[in-house]
């Protein structure tokens, strides 16, 4: 035990004393909001200063209304062929050809451009027509705009979660979506980055051939576990520093910008949702944000990080011990990354969309996918039995992979220049002491 402790210390100090650790730990929490801020700023500026594009148009229908905030429409008088020629010579963005059409069947409108137009350009121009035709139809049908406005009703549903004790908590599914996504992605990154570091460390020991010197003093299993645990503690330290940095920073930022947190900005940017649902204004989002049981989420994140990391870390260790160079490791990375990728994609396609559906539930229980899948679900509330089952299976899972990896590791680290394939790994696994 004493020796494992020495190895843990060594691994921990090795990483923490590196400049790269310091930079990653302190800069990353600053970089993300900074990038977000810059993007938001640029997007806003672009909107403000965007030069209006010119579009030539030939209107044979007489229905076209040329007022738009985004484009300058210039009428062209002449045939379509002349217009095309003129369009080729000047700097206009597009040439819009509007033939005669019936209001009930607006067809045949064409937009000629020099470069492929973006979907939003096409949609914007379509909307100009749609709005104008709608107005015309309303006039035809003698519908008053006021009457129409009176028909409109805005409904906002406040979702309130009632806990078993009868306590009511308002929640916001969009905020939960964001939390699930963030936690899931963070989990994915953590497991991958730290798992890969275990592998890299082991390959380094093998390549520098220091490993046999070490295993003459400690059992190979102790060396492997020392490395895994040492790196885990580096990961946890990094995570804790991030939590502290982010929470203090956001408090500072919130104070400075008067409750406008960057996350909120993102939420609003994120979507037409936010624009469409008029009810959820920033204050409510903020409220929902504070309503999230953060300590519960963080506790679970830590549990699943440790569990998932140990589970995958052992597999990364086994791969590292089997190969002689990082390049050789590629072939064995594939089966390890598959369940990670499945859970990562499922996070967006199933789990966040339908956190209580059967696929989401199963993915959050199976040990190989549960760390990421459970993070996606955790904010939405997970039944206790599912959480406990998932946790128990995860613990069982990492004990199994550690045992499995240990058997390969003890043989692999002493092998040099062997051509390794799955058959060889199986043989190592079966080999006695």
């Amino acid at each position, binding site marked *: 035990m004493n020796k494992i402790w020495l190895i843990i210390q060594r691994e921990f100090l090795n990483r923490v004393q590196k400049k790269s650790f310091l930079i990653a730990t302190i800069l990353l929490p600053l970089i993300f909001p900074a990038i977000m801020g810059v993007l938001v700023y640029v997007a806003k500026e672009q909107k403000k200063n965007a030069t209006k594009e010119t579009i030539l148009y030939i209107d044979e229908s007489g229905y076209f209304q040329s007022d738009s905030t985004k484009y300058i429409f210039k009428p062209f008088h002449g045939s379509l062929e002349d217009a095309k020629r003129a369009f080729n010579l000047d700097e206009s963005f597009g040439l819009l050809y509007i033939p005669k059409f019936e209001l009930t069947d607006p067809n045949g409108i064409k937009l000629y451009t020099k470069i492929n137009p973006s979907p939003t350009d096409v949609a914007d121009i379509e909307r100009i027509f749609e709005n104008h035709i709608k107005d015309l139809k309303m006039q035809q049908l003698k519908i008053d705009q006021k009457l129409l406005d009176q028909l409109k009703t805005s409904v906002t549903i406040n979702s309130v979660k009632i806990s078993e004790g009868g306590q009511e908590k308002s929640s916001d599914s969009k905020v939960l979506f964001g939390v699930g996504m963030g936690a899931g992605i963070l989990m994915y990154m953590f497991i991958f980055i730290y798992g890969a570091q275990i592998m890299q460390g082991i390959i380094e020991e093998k390549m520098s051939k*220091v490993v*046999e*010197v070490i295993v*003459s003093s400690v059992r190979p299993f102790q060396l492997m576990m020392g490395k895994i645990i040492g790196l885990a503690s580096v990961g946890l330290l990094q995570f804790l520093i991030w939590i502290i940095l982010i929470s203090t920073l956001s408090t500072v930022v919130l104070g400075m910008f008067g409750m406008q947190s960057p996350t909120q900005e993102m939420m609003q940017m994120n979507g037409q949702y936010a624009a469409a649902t008029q009810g959820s204004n920033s204050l409510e989002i903020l409220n929902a944000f504070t309503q999230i049981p953060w300590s519960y989420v963080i506790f679970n994140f830590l549990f699943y990080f440790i569990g998932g990391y140990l589970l995958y870390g052992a597999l990364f260790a086994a791969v590292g011990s089997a190969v002689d160079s990082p390049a050789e490791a590629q072939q064995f990375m594939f089966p390890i990354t598959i369940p990670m990728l499945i859970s990562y994609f499922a996070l967006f396609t199933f789990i966040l969309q339908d956190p209580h559906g059967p696929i989401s539930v199963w993915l959050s229980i199976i040990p190989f996918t549960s760390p990421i899948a459970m993070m996606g679900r955790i904010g939405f509330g997970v039944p206790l039995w599912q959480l406990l089952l998932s946790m128990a299976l995860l613990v069982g899972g990492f004990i199994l992979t550690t045992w499995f990896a240990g058997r390969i590791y003890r043989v692999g680290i*002493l092998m040099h220049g062997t051509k390794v394939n799955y058959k060889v790994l199986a043989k190592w696994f079966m*080999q*006695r002491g």
Partner: protein
Amino acid sequence: MLASCNYPSSFATYPFKFLTIKIVEALVARGVTKRYANHTALDQVDITVPEKSIFGLLGPNGAGKTTLIRIINQIINSDGGEITIFGQKLNPDHIGLIGYLPEERGLYKKLKVGEQLIYFARLKGLSKSEAVLKIKVWLEKFEIKDWWNKKVEDLSKGMAQKVQFISTVMHEPKLIILDEPFSGFDPVNAQLITDEILQLKQKGSTIIFSTHRMETVEDLCDDIVLINKSKVILEGTKKQVKAHYRTNTFTVEHRGAFSLNGSLYDLIRQETLEDDFHRSLVKMRTTGSPNQLIQDLTNVTEVFSFSEKVPTMSEIFITLVKGESNE
């Protein structure tokens, strides 16, 4: 040279054992066996390493030397047999007693020399303060005190070899196991290490030396064991082994060519050195006194020098190993 070594073929076909008279054994292995899926790496291996000696563990590549060394270091387990170290059954407490320099060796490139040695020493069970004291003594001895804060990657190969050697012996192990210690060492460092090995022996350490460099065996080893194809085929003190493989062959330098007739001697070879000077290789058919040969020689020629041609370890090694593979 080889052709001249006509050992009786029976010597090569069965393991020979010689009685060792010393009482305390640093290491005794009895019936040690290690099997892998496709082959047996060690088959009923018995060795006895007397205390305070330099013990040569010899054998061609793939004979099983490294496997045996790894078992002694408890890196891998044997499938059968027993090993005792200073009379005690091998157990994890012995790790601190052993200093091991593996054939596949290296250091952490990014670590500083001092840090690295402290780490290794602590893994061997030393406390930090003990480690620092002992490492300082060694660094001073090798006159490399100012390397403490140097990273290993900034050291030259020869410098790294010194550090590596220190890491093997700094915790004052009673049993030192060196697997091909000179491979990759430049001659200067090799000599330095040789001197250290002899000093360590004088101070009471036992050294197991695995190698196929026979000159070093000839110079350093007191006892040897020869392993071939996972079995011990020869064991004993260097003197005993050499005595056993004496072939009653003598080298004579003389003036005037001669031929030996009769049933007592074989004239294996006679070469001319200059003018009338010759060198002859004479083998006595029966184990008699060399005096008889000298007497007989003086009758036929003028003898300038006379010496027994003792087989070198290298010759014994090659004959035995070849004999095995011819079976």
